[in-house]
Every structure is written in C-alpha cells, then in structure tokens.
C-alpha cells in the first residue's frame, strides 16, 4: 500500500498524468497518476487515504519546491494536470460523500479584469491541497461573489486581479460580502496587490504565491 501511494505521490509531483503522457521523459511508458489511482482503489485503499497520503503529498512537494524557487509555473501546472487525472477517479466518492474536501473556496477574477492565469494556478494548487473550488471565472461581478456566498456562508472567497485599474474593484466586493457576512474569510491576490492594499480594503489576507495561501488555509482549517 505504502509503495503504491508513494509512487502515486511521485507521479503528481513530477506531473506524470497517465501511462501515455509524454512528460516527464524519464518516466515514459510507466503508469501515471490515472492508472495508479485506479490500482489504489482496486486495492481497497480509501479515497480519503489516496487524497491525503498521495495526491496532496505530491502537490505539497511541488508547491514547496515552487515556494523555494526550485520549481516554475509550468511544473506546477503539469502537476495539477496529473492531480486532475487522478481526481477523475475519486469524483464519485466525493459526490457520494464517502470522501470529503477540506472545505469550499469561491475564486474569481474581479469585475473588469479578464486575466485568468494567476487565478487558475491558485485553483489548481488549492484543489491539490484538498479543497473544493468554485471558479467564477473572469470579470466576476460583486453580485456573483455574494450569490456564491449566499448559497453557503461558510465558503471562503478568493479575489484575483492583474490590473491596477481593476484591483480597486476588490474593495467593493469585500465590502459587500462583509456587510452581509461579517465572518466571511476573503483573501486577495495578483501582481499589483500587496499586504498594505489588503489591510486598506479590509480583506483577510494577501499571499504572494499560491502555496503560501494553501498553507494558510490548511492552518486555519485545523484550528
């Protein structure tokens, strides 16, 4: 069991999605995340163990490397692809309640802004850390965010912006959500955003990279 989960974690970390995937070249022809997840389920390893002891371990390893400057965005993306391939097999267990996410996060790029690569990377990292992510896409209005929290006030919110002209829209979104749900946790990210800006608009945190955001959320969830 341990060997299988270790190999699966390695596939996630290295970005080996499936047997036929060409990347990484040194793992050519080997089983990937998709096949190993199926094998783990067939060996009666619980979906929660697969998620926590393999998939999240692999994503955490690549995330740590990214934080230390030892990995780059394409490596994060390709690991996330492998994670997605594995999660396809676990989805029925999440849908039926056999396996559980850590919680739900609503992510979106704020109104007026069409940039999505930063948000998408955060989404992949958070999914890899065991969270369910509801992606509102780009140019997401304040109303959209409020409606998403209306459906479940325990949802955490993440706002993204790339432009100095659109980051100001974060303030309105934070204000409207907090007015209705003062306990809501709202985090912000994006190239022009800073801790000072976070404090000014009354958001709950700014993180310079997705992995540090995921670590913060994990620490909050374990309290």
């Amino acid at each position: 069991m341990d060997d299988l989960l270790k190999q699966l974690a390695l596939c996630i970390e290295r970005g080996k999605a499936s047997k036929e995937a060409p990347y990484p070249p040194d793992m050519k022809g080997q089983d990937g995340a998709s096949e190993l997840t199926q094998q783990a389920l067939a060996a009666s390893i619980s979906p929660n163990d697969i998620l926590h002891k393999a998939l999240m371990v692999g994503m955490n390893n690549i995330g740590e490397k990214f934080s230390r400057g030892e990995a780059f965005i394409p490596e994060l993306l390709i690991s996330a692809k492998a994670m997605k391939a594995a999660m396809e097999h676990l989805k029925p267990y999440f849908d039926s309640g056999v396996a559980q996410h850590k919680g739900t996060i609503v992510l979106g790029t704020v109104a007026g802004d069409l940039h999505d690569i930063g948000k998408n990377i955060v989404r992949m990292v958070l999914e890899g850390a065991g969270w369910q992510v509801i992606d509102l896409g780009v140019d997401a209005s304040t109303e959209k965010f409020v409606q998403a929290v209306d459906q479940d006030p325990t949802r955490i919110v993440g706002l993204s912006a790339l432009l100095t002209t659109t980051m100001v829209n974060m303030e309105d979104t934070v204000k409207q959500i907090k007015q209705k749900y003062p306990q809501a946790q709202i985090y912000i990210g994006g190239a022009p955003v800073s801790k000072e800006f976070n404090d000014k608009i009354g958001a709950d945190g700014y993180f310079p990279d997705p992995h540090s955001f995921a670590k913060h959320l994990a620490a909050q969830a374990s309290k």
Partner: protein
Amino acid sequence: MPQTPREIVRRCLEFDFPERIPRDLWLLPWAVTRYPETVEQLNRRFPSDLATTEYFYPPSPRVKGDPYKVGYFTDEWGCVFRNLQDGIIGEVEKPILESIADWKLVQPPYEQLPADFSEPYEIIARYYESTDKFVLANICPRPWERYQFLRGTENALIDVMMPDEGMVDLLKVIHDFYLKEVELWATSEVDAIRFMDDWGAQQRLLIPPELWREYFKPLYKDYCDLAKAHGKFVFMHTDGDVSDIYEDLIEIGVDALNSQLFCMDLDDLARRAKGKITFWGEIDRQYVLCSKDPQVGRDAVRKVCSHLYDPAGGMIAQFEFGAGAHPETAIAVFEEWHKWDEEERKTVV
C-alpha cells in the same frame, strides 16, 4: 555644440558620456484620453529622445476592430481579443489552437510584408532625415507572446515542458515570420531594432531558465545577430523578474533592456549588469506610478539612479504613462530624473 537627441542616446548606449540622461516616455491611449494636459506638459518639458519611424504596413484584411476600444478585436494573425476597458489592450478570449497538434494551421501574416520594400525604405529614410531623434524600427517581434496568443497562456506554459509535441514546430513558424521582418527592417534607415516578450513572473522567471536558454534565447540571438550585422542597436522589453536571464541578454547583444526593475534586487542587478547594458527605465507601474503621492515617484527615481546611474551612460529615463498611473506622480518622475542628472553633473564639474 549641444548633442542631438540621437547622439545622446547613442552615447548612452555606448557608454560614451552623453551630455544628459536620455528620456523616453511611453504613452498609452488610456492616459492620452484621460490626461491630455499632463501628456502635453510631459511632452513639452521632457521631450522623448527616441522616436518610432512613421512607416506602417498596409492594413491587413484580417484585422477587425480597434485594439484599444471596448469590445472585440481581431489581429493580423487572426487572434481574437476581448477588451473591457478603453485605452488598453484586451485578452485573447479563445486561442486559435486548442491542440498543439494543429500547429500547421497557423498562417503568419506574410501578406502584410510588402513584396517590394523599396518604397517603404524611402519613407523610412525620409523620416530619419526629418528628425534628430534616435529612431526605432516600427516592429516588435514577440515569439513567446504570439505563441501564447495562439495557444492560450496555460497551454503555452505546459507546451514548454513537452517541446517535441509541437511547440518547437509552432515556434519555428512564428520565428520565421519575425526573422523576415527583422531582416527587412535591419537594412532600413533606423538606429535600432526592438523586440519584446514578458518572461518574468512576479518573483522569478516564468519557465525554468534552462528551457528558456534552449528554446527561446536562440530566437532573440537571431534577431540580435541580424540587427548587428547591419550596424543597428538592439532594444528589448520584458516584464516581470528576469534577473535569471540578464546576463544571457547581455551576451546575445541586447543593448538596452526595458524591465521591471522594481521586481528585482537592484543591488544584485547593479553588480551583475551595470556598465554592460543600458537600463531602459523603468519606474514601477504596479505600486509607484499609481500612487497619488508624487514623493513616491521621486523616491523611486532616486532608488533607481542611486543603484544604476553611471555618468558614462547605461540609463534611459523611461516610464509608461498608462492605465492607473497618477498624473502628478508621472510629472514628478521626470522632474526628479532631471534634478538627479543636474546634481550629478554639477558634482562632476
């Protein structure tokens, strides 16, 4: 006799003691529309020493719309952009190539390049004669950005990890077109060729440096080699933290680099690159220029100058007056650069 703007820029690039720091103001329609008086004041008090030659290709039949207007715009490669704000360029909504296996479908806009370049050469030469400014070619090859426009950013970043699946082929299609463009322009009457690509994320290079060196550095080297073979200077723009590739760009012959200095460690950059390349600006757009406090702009200029200024040259006072920039801070930036320059020259005397 005072040096002309062209001579000032040339001396700056060659570390041959220009009489002052050359200036270059980048204006986006966003600023021109919102702050015409500030733009007029900046142009009057601090005229740019660089100009772009006024020859434009004939309109492409593929182009539809205005890139700087709200709505949709199709460019000369057929990429469709969606824009939500007047005065800036939008984002590609749906990449043309969903699968990299379809790379052969891409058709570069060769029809734009005049079959006979003799008339353009005359127009370009006339422009050169009409100005005493340092003249840049009116092209801007951008192989990586074009690749992203065609494939989408996320796909492009993943393609880099599997170059043999089609990335190398698509990149060659793009590069061949740009090479042809550089070849045409390098033999025209301009002082410099320029190209661009945003290679930095906020804290590091977008892709592993070794992959950049293997697949992208040779492209830029080709442009540099062509330009140098015809005695032209080379200017490049790249956003983000690109400290990992500064030496590479110096090595291949980039003379002036416009990079986001404020994303990088200026002490480190000064140690590694000062005296070897010209810092073509810039002043930070993310935190400084959008500040309402002009002192923030002045402090930023002092920070850049205290690290990178050299009386021999190697610095162009440059910033972009674009989306979100505050007009008073924009003016303060050039005022401070001018002030620094005057103070330094008094010290030397």
